[in-house]
């Protein structure tokens, strides 16, 4: 039997998942011949990373795996087994590569000041990537109510008996008995239903709804006047309101039977407000956190926040209540090193061929017969010539014994290496003035049979004009599935967290001032970078957020566009450090300018004056069409296309922008889509965790 030749376009998480699965077993390897075409020198797409000066890690942004990323974790467990790194090497096993993080923090702007929520999520004994069963609906309802009861317990002990009202001190007894009774009733109903393994019975749902709606009225009737001056009471009240309003919505709209996606026509806040959430809760960081985490800001504008209610709710329940082991996992090195090195190694071992420095210029579709149209031609530019044309490009370097992706091509394997260096060419940039050295035109039936298109949606108008011509569904997708630019910067500092003024563990923090609303302490990565004493940094910190920019990427002829946006990202970072860093690190500011960051803390020093020292740090604006972050805007779910339903006979698609059941831009959605693409090509079964319940 002649092997089917599969051309995988792109090397991000989704494309690599498909490539991995297509080559996973000897039978599959007999049937499929897989080639991955990758722009530039490294795999990873939006998750690509590289090593820079001092072997430091330079990311596209901040990446973590949430504890519920079952499919992504399962894939990585396999890849680490498959790669079979010697135990003496760093990050030899899955467990070494993914480290649990339990501490999430959020900044809330209350009464004109930033206040902090620090939420330690308890760990559990479940293992990431190894879940076996799906929860029942009632288990979720029961869990929400149990957490609410715990919160009310705390609230009870915090209500002050004497409160200030105007000028007078008024003694008042606030009884929480009523609230406790209501929650207990609701919990009892849910528990009974859960234990009985009952299907959602409308009668039970209605009973619970009646009780918890009453609870919300009680909460704001009795408590609200107390919370103005007391942040703890505010937290507990808003926390309760948030939990219960979500539950009201879940039960009222029968989410657990009809699926989350049914809510995606509405904005999450709108939905939550409709189900009784207090305006204060809607403005609080608890509600905002999903908008920040999913960068859900139209054109990167924090004033225009929008996210599909179903997608948001699904993600919140998954993140907060259904994690395996820890709420989140960080990579023990960069995302490229931890995720894409093993995937590459495993795929290569399984015979997948990698064509680096191949830039897809056009995917051409034609209608050749009566059936659906198909992809007939692939125009792919070769960006450079290899010095040794018979060998594949060897993409790695080693930092402290770990295999890593470099931050730029390994020029000594490239004929044009010196010229690239001299002209400061970025081969990954869509806007590069660099001309391909040659173009390969792959013909269907002759050079390929199947195509997996794994390049993000904002590239489609540039790469797939004929597909848009032939398919109204593709036109609709391109019009409605929105993407935004993002920005990130990384700091290396000469003081440790405590000396900078942060005192509570190693946080992952979001909800802070826009646009750089998210910060993660990444100090644990420093041993994996190439620093040495003396003058090695003691803290590494990543910041990221949306970047304000046009809805549609400019054309490739705007060669200076990346530089302009990168400068904008630099200004945003500097402005953040000048105005906002003190809230996170109160001891990192200058003596004479109590709000401005002390630039001399940055490592290494360039001996510059003031903010000129920022030049040694790392910042980036992700502006290429393929780097743009996918949004799950309300009402756009129907515009997404399923990997197996592209309307083109020999084409499957994958990425976090396809209809993957998750919709929010994330590694898990990308991995699921890659698995769906595998199914589409092979017609074989493949278990996708959560498919039956969560991703409907």
């Amino acid at each position, binding site marked *: 039997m002649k092997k089917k030749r599969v051309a995988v376009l792109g090397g991000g998480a989704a494309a690599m998942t498909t490539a991995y699965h297509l080559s996973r077993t000897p039978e599959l390897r007999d049937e499929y011949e897989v080639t991955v075409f990758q722009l530039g020198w490294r795999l990873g797409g939006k998750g690509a990373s590289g090593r820079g000066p001092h072997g430091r890690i330079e990311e596209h942004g901040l990446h973590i795996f949430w504890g519920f990323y079952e499919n992504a974790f399962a894939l990585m467990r396999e890849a680490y087994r498959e790669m079979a790194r010697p135990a003496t090497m760093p990050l030899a096993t899955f467990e070494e590569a993914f480290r649990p993080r339990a501490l999430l923090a959020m900044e809330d702007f209350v009464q*004109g000041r930033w206040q902090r929520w620090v939420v330690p999520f308890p760990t559990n004994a479940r293992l990431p990537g190894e879940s076996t069963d799906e929860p029942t609906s009632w288990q979720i309802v029961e869990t929400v109510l149990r957490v609410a009861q715990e919160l009310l317990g705390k609230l009870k002990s915090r209500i002050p008996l004497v409160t200030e009202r105007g000028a007078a001190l008024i003694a008042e007894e606030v009884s929480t008995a009523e609230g406790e009774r209501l929650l207990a009733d609701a919990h009892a109903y849910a528990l009974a239903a859960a234990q009985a393994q009952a299907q959602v019975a409308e009668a039970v749902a209605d009973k619970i709804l009646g009780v918890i709606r009453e609870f919300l009225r009680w909460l704001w009737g009795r408590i609200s006047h107390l919370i103005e001056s007391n942040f703890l009471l505010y937290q507990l009240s808003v926390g309760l309101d948030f939990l219960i309003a979500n539950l009201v919505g879940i039960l009222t709209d029968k989410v657990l039977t009809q699926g989350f996606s049914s809510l995606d026509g509405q904005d999450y806040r709108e939905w939550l407000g409709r189900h009784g959430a207090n305006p204060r809760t809607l403005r609080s960081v608890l509600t905002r956190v999903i908008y920040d985490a999913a960068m859900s800001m139209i054109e990167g504008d*924090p*004033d225009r926040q929008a996210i599909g209610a179903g997608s948001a709710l699904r993600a919140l329940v998954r993140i907060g209540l259904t994690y395996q082991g820890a709420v989140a996992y960080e990579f023990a090195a960069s995302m490229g090193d931890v995720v894409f090195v093993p995937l590459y190694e495993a795929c290569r071992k399984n015979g997948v061929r990698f064509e680096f420095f191949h830039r897809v210029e056009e995917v051409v579709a034609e209608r050749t017969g009566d059936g659906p149209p198909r992809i007939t031609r692939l125009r792919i530019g070769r960006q450079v010539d290899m010095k040794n044309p018979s060998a594949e490009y060897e993409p790695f370097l080693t930092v402290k014994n770990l295999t890593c992706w470099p931050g730029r091509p390994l020029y000594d394997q490239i004929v044009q290496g010196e010229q690239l260096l001299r002209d400061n060419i970025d081969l990954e940039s869509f806007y590069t003035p660099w001309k391909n050295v040659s173009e390969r035109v792959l013909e269907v039936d002759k050079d390929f049979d199947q195509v997996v298109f794994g390049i993000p949606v904002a590239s489609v108008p540039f790469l797939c004009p004929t597909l848009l011509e032939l398919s109204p569904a593709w036109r609709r997708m391109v019009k409605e599935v929105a993407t935004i630019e993002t920005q990130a910067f990384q700091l290396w500092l000469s003081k440790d967290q405590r000396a900078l003024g942060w005192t509570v563990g190693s946080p992952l923090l979001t909800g802070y001032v826009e646009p750089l609303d998210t910060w993660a302490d990444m100090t644990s990565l420093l041993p994996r970078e190439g620093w040495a004493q003396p003058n090695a940094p003691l803290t590494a910190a990543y910041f990221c957020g949306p970047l304000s920019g046009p809805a549609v990427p400019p054309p490739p002829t705007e060669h200076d566009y990346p530089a302009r946006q990168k400068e904008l990202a630099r200004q945003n970072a500097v402005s953040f450090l000048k105005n906002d860093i*003190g809230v996170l690190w109160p001891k990192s500011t200058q003596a004479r300018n*109590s*709000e401005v960051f002390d630039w001399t803390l940055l490592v290494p020093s360039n001996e510059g004056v003031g903010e000129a020292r920022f030049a040694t740090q790392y910042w980036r604006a992700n502006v290429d069409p393929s780097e743009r972050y996918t949004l799950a805007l309300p009402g756009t779910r129907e515009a997404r296309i399923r990997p197996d339903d592209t309307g083109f006979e020999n084409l499957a698609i994958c990425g976090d922008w396809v209809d993957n059941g998750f919709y929010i831009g994330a590694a898990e959605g990308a991995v699921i889509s890659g698995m769906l693409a595998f199914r589409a090509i092979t017609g074989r079964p493949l278990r996708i965790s959560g498919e039956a319940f969560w991703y409907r």
Partner: protein
Amino acid sequence: MSTAQESRGRKRRIVILGGGVGAMTAAFGLTNQPGWQEQYEVILYNIGWRLGGKGASGRNKDVAQRIEEHGLHVWMGHYENAFRVMRQVYRELGRPKGAPLATIEEAFRKQSLVTLYERTPTGWVDWDFPFPTNAQEPGAEGEGGELPTLVTYLERGLQALLDLLHQAPGAGLAAATPAPDALPSRVEGVLRSLGLSIFPRVGVPGIGRTLQLAQLLAARLPRSPGEQDPSQIEALLWLLEEVLARLSSRFTRNLENSAIRKIWSVLELGLVVARGVLRDGVLSTGFNAIDGEDFRAWLARHGASDFTLHRAPLVKGMYQLLFAYIQGDPNRQQLAAGVATRFMLRMALTYKGAVFYKMRAGMGDVVFAPLYELLKRRGVQFHFFHKVENLHVHPLTRNVDRVEMTRQVELKNPAAGYQPLVDVLGLPCWPDRPLYDQIVDGGALEASGVNLESYWARPWPGRSPITLERGRDYDVLVLGISLGAFPYVCPELLAQSARWRRMVEELQTNQTLGVQLWMSKTLEELGWKESPTVMTGYAEPLNTYADMAQIIPRETWPAGTVKDVAYFTAPLIDAPNIPSFTDYDFPRREHERLKQLSVRWLKEWIGPLWPEASRYNPTGLDWELLVDSGGAKGVARFDSQYWRANIDPPERYVLSLPGSTAARLGSHDSDYPNLYLAGDWTLTGLNCGCVEAAVMSGLQASQAISGSPGHIAGESDF
């Protein structure tokens, strides 16, 4: 000279160029003596359609006759001369009872709360200073027009500091800080020689006793300059330095408490200023003598801490109040020490009635419409639409012989002259644009969009050159145009006088900004917890703000639509390159630049100010709160608000940089015999950009020309 003129058979002609505070006050002063018409004529030429200079405002007939200002203007309770003029204007004008703003009391509203913002590493802390009102009236007739002596400032200032130590939390701080066990014999000797007990009255705890001794000593010092005995000064210094040193070591343990920080910053600043005044001999020399030094540098030299100099908002507030940013750059703050200290002391210690006053309509409506109506009635001739282009000097006589001007438009009825005011709810007001129906081809001019006040206006039809000649059209000139325009309108004056060149070089100017928002919620609903305030010290670039809800009844909004009005002002950092006047697009670009700055500021900084004014971007303004009858969405609603970049050369704010006082020319001392000066850029006794200085300057010009008025308050520190 006058004989020669009379022999020519006509009265002296005094021509005033410009229509701002200085120019208008000069006209007021010149016409304030009965029978002035027998002596001379007063003729005023002004650019465009309205008077007011930097204080001009306009009513926008397209948007509820809203007031559009150059910036935020508040009057201070120590503006003795300015209030005196306005008091007389309102009285003499005699608006009928019940008419809007019929009296000065109705026109100006007391404002006692001042808010300064402290920046801490973790956010903003508002320091509220409610200055108590008093029964005095600024600018009232009779006694009280004279300012206190420098010793009196010292006495009152120390008393104010002492008051701080009488009440919590200052009392606790004082009690915890022990007074020195004994006084040196020389200090004791001075006290005894002045009849002071070294065991003062009970009541002030701890170190307060030492401060009380100092205050009592100050109260006994001779008032006249130079009469103080060196040993007295030395004793006072010893006492103050003890208080400063002891309190300051105590304070460093109390940094976390913002109430303590606030009173400490007042105490430290007060004590350091007193120390500097005494050590530098200011009691004998006056404040001008320390104007060569920057305010912060001077304070630092006399022992001010980094906390007071850089973090506490009092010192910062003075720089912002006087817009003391070179080229508008917040990183280049410079302010003459004497100017700052004098202004601060007058503001805090000599106000009458209230520390600040807010106008109850536009500055144009409250100040310039009544002034115009009165002066017109008195017989001053006004020529609108005249832009001064060039002043020519005779190289030998040094007289200004010719004034070249552009007559910007032709009036339909030249004989009647231009009637500039419009009625808004019964109040005579300035419109924000010319009344085109009085202008030949006014419709075409309006359609062309030309801004007649702009130096960057694209040439338009209907304008014509005219020349005034000395002897024929005028005898005496009063230059009331501001300094920023001098390189363009009087290059010959610069060329022929080193003093002029020095003045223009040393007295730098900067651009300023004004932003006005009309809100659909009340101040309380926006989350402001205190009474309406005037605020400075806040985040750049819109660092100064005042609630202006008091003007809402003077605009014609449908009931209930506008519930609050907020004005912001600050220096505006200069464009990197200020182009020639043929770059007609420049004003649009600057307007756009200010818009971007403002929008960004509103996104980043409105939250701490108005905690309830944001929606889902926590620090950013909820754009829906802006009143926009056009119904735009999101940030586009900002377009319906008012913002203004003051970029025209004469609109630029004149700075009081270190060393600049010595470069100022007096109104009567222009270096050109027939030229007098009127504006806040002259040497007045305040020497900084404000209404009061401009009024003083206008009165000084009038005094030099006509002898009237006989007395101007605060011209000298003595």
